């Protein structure tokens, strides 16, 4: 029996080693695409939002503005949706079980731009003491428009669409300045730049791709990239309007 147990242990060890080796090969065949998006030129000044008294009270001492161009001290540009537009043809990716999230805070959608995959659930929360209507307005055929009431602190509303659409707009008609935009694609290789302008698309398999950086007001910039065994750094510059 001890002999048999030893043999079994050896076999198990071999299997673990083989799995580890296979996994390491797998990791070696995928890489992260990282980079930074900056803005060229000087964006137009943002406009003050005409908040009503109910929403204005939620921003004491401040005057919230539009966030068309969120620019850092070194021209870093936030809210840019970076995603693969070519190179993934014929491949399918299951929708993730986790949800993409939008919240309404101080009568403003947070975040302003979010990424999601087709079929993935998009949850919309209301953290405000005010009522909102959540009104996604897709324009791609097959993606259905909806409009739902959401009272203060009520449960999250859930949405899902099957067709890619960049950007799918959410609006609130109660507060006409409230918008959020979803970059909806049919694969998991996307990212949204943060306030430092950086992005990271993880585990992109080896291959040739076209990477697009899409800013809602600044427009699109694309670059062809090749991923082969190591991380790739791609920087974009988007022209201010």
């Amino acid at each position, binding site marked *: 029996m001890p002999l048999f147990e030893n043999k079994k242990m050896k076999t198990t060890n071999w299997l673990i080693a083989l799995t580890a080796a296979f996994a390491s090969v797998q990791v070696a065949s995928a890489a992260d695409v990282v980079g930074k998006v900056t803005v060229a030129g000087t964006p137009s000044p943002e406009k003050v939002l005409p908040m009503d008294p109910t929403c204005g009270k939620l921003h004491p001492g401040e005057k919230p503005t539009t966030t*068309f161009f969120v620019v850092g001290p070194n021209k870093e540009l936030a809210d840019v949706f970076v995603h693969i537009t070519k190179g993934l043809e014929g491949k399918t990716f299951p929708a993730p079980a986790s949800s993409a999230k939008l919240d309404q805070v101080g009568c403003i959608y947070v975040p302003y731009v979010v990424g999601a995959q087709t079929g993935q659930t998009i949850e919309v929360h209301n953290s405000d003491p005010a*009522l909102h*209507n959540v009104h996604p307005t897709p324009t791609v055929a097959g993606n259905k428009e909806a409009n739902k*009431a959401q009272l203060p602190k009520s449960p999250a509303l859930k949405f899902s669409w099957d067709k890619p659409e960049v950007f799918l707009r959410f609006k609130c008609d*109660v507060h006409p300045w409230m918008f959020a935009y979803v970059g909806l694609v049919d694969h998991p290789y996307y990212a949204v730049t943060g306030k430092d302008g950086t992005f990271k698309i993880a585990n992109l398999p080896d291959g040739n791709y076209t990477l697009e950086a899409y800013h809602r007001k600044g427009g699109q910039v694309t670059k062809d990239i090749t991923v082969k065994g190591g991380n790739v750094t791609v920087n974009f510059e988007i022209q201010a309007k």
Partner: protein
Amino acid sequence: MSAVKQSQKLHWFVIMTAVATLGLIGLGGLVTSHQAGMAVPDWPTTYGYNMFFFPVSQWVGGVFYEHTHRLYAAFIGLLTSIMAGWLWLRGTEGRVRWAGMLTILVLVMALGHRGSGQSSGGASVIPFHFKVLAFVMPVLLVFGIVQCIRHRAAQHWLGLTAFFAVIFQGLLGGLRVALYKDEVGIFHAALAQCFLLLLSTTALLTSRWWVNFKTAKEVPSRRLLQASGLICVAIVVQLILGASMRHQHAGLAVPDFPLAYGKVWPATDEAALFEYNHSESRLDYRDFKPITASHIYLHMAHRAGALLIWLAIMALAVSYVRSLGWKASFSKAAIAWAGLISLQAVLGAFTIWTNKAADIATLHVVLGAVTLIFGSITSLCGFRCRMVSVNVNPLASAKTQVASGVKAPDEADLVTQ
């Protein structure tokens, strides 16, 4: 024409309904100007409440415009129902009378019964009988219009047709919310103008002046009346164009005036559209939809229509003064109409210069309705004068025709007529 005895009380009630309806058009204009048409996502309920019991504390932002529009529309529905019943009772008798009253009662009760019209997950669920009514009401409306024509604008048929129209209009407003269709919104806006026209016509036809009119001191020529009638049709088309522009939710398709993107006729190729959509003027917190070539064509058609209508009314005013003289009531009315259309043109320009400020844009809608009603009522008065003068005093009519360049018949011919 109905031979029913004139009632001043009824006449003033119809006027009140028409004036109140103009106010409703203003409120509807505010809803669209504030982009608040979808601020209440459920219908016929309001955020799950029976709309009459929706807490006042929640009438905020876009909800305020949309909800007050709905409540006020219900009030107009009530006024129209009373008006229709009143006119029907006065204009009919026997079984027809009770059949008509029963129709009004059943339809009012059907609208009052909300059935399963509860919101589901915050979205709209249309009650089944509302869906049925959405198909029935246009048929009844057409039936009413046919009856109005057949019975030569009998007051009771005008009232019942207005009643059918107001129900259909209410359903259209609700369906625009429930079906997310801008096209329904355009039709809703256009029907509102036609409904006001119908009420104004009913107000005129129930007036003491219309019923008791015997002799005409001034009789406009047939050509002038035809021209003013055509202008009224053109204004209706112009109002529909305006409603179509407003319900594109694309903001100002052309942001400058009197030029268009600095030209007489703007470019509409892809590069130009990209430039327009990424210009600084599009950095608006309202986030309008992107401008397309069709938006620009629509905008330019509205401008061209405005110019043509303005020129036509100016020419009409000059023609009236030439044919009837300065002091004639119809000349004064035509000059007033020219003043109204000029003011409307100025408001149109200010709508552009203020980047579609909600109050200016709404005033433009309301004045458009006033211009249509003013022109239509004065035209109808002209037709009435002409009709009476031809029936009572053909010679007077003939003399007026001479004044306006129409060949006069011989006196002997008139005697034999």
